[in-house]
């Protein structure tokens, strides 16, 4: 196997961790929308931390080995190619928007923890925070940006 083959595998590993982590976070987030007890919401939000770790590791691997691949690939790719720049912008934007929504979810988890310790009774305020449209929009937009990123990687427009 050549250096290019190894770099492509490591880049793909990063992409799988990034998108797979996003899927895990989405599944747990959607599950939390159907729960009422603060402690249940807390358990689901707590598990999202595993997804966040996968997203961070995946983003770093995909970016580092992706940039290395641009240099190593025998297809005259350039760092100034539109698809390379678009991919970097989408990766940063997806992580920034997802990170913003995640920080709001973290505050909701903290609130759920307080409610769980104080009797674990369902709360309309907690439900409102879990279903906050800005937070949900941030999560879904960051997911859509990841899908767009995969599409850019496949089509490589302008390459």
């Amino acid at each position, binding site marked *: *196997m050549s250096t290019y*083959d*190894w770099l*492509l*595998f490591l*880049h*793909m*590993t990063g*992409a*799988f961790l990034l*998108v*797979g*982590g*996003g*899927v*895990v976070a*989405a*599944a*747990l987030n959607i*599950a939390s929308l159907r*729960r009422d007890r603060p*402690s*249940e919401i807390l*358990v*689901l939000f707590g*598990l999202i931390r*595993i997804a966040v770790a*996968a997203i961070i590791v995946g983003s770093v691997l995909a970016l580092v080995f992706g940039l290395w691949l641009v240099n190593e*690939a*025998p*297809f005259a*790719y350039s760092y100034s190619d539109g698809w390379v720049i678009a991919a970097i912008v989408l990766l940063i934007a997806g992580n920034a928007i997802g990170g913003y929504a995640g920080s709001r979810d973290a505050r909701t988890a903290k609130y759920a923890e307080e409610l769980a310790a104080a009797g674990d009774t369902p709360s309309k305020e907690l439900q409102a925070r879990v279903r906050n449209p800005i937070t949900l929009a941030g999560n879904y937009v960051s997911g859509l940006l990841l*899908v767009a990123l*995969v*599409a850019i990687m*496949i*089509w*490589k427009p302008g*390459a």
Partner: protein
Amino acid sequence: MLAAIRPDSWNFPLFLHVLGAMILFGATATVAIVGFAGRSRPDYAGMLSRVALNTFLLGIVPSWIVMRVAAQWIVGKEFPDEDAAPGWVDVGFLVSEPGAILLIVLGILAWLSVRRGRPFLAVPLLATLYVLALGVAWFAMSAKP
């Protein structure tokens, strides 16, 4: 090498195949995570078993179908003579087809976990095994050893 030299008509099935595989990976990892969490948090085992079953039905099943149909679509374009397909293609089919049997067993056990109200250890173990198998497949698909 394929990425730069493939015809444009291969891009859409490749996109569906890769995206389907990534979602399948994430959905299977979710089942593993909530399955192990259910074992260590008995008070929430019922809820987490239900999350595992819903993720199986709404995540694993559709993404496996998209991944597998798109795989056949692009193999048909890239290797019209199936006998000429290289070994890395066979690795993908080895993971997807016997893997489907494993996923069916996983789905049945996830359903039984919900029905009986107790989490089966086999659910996260099988999910972890399939996640590892997917790792082998993406190694074969990307590095093409």
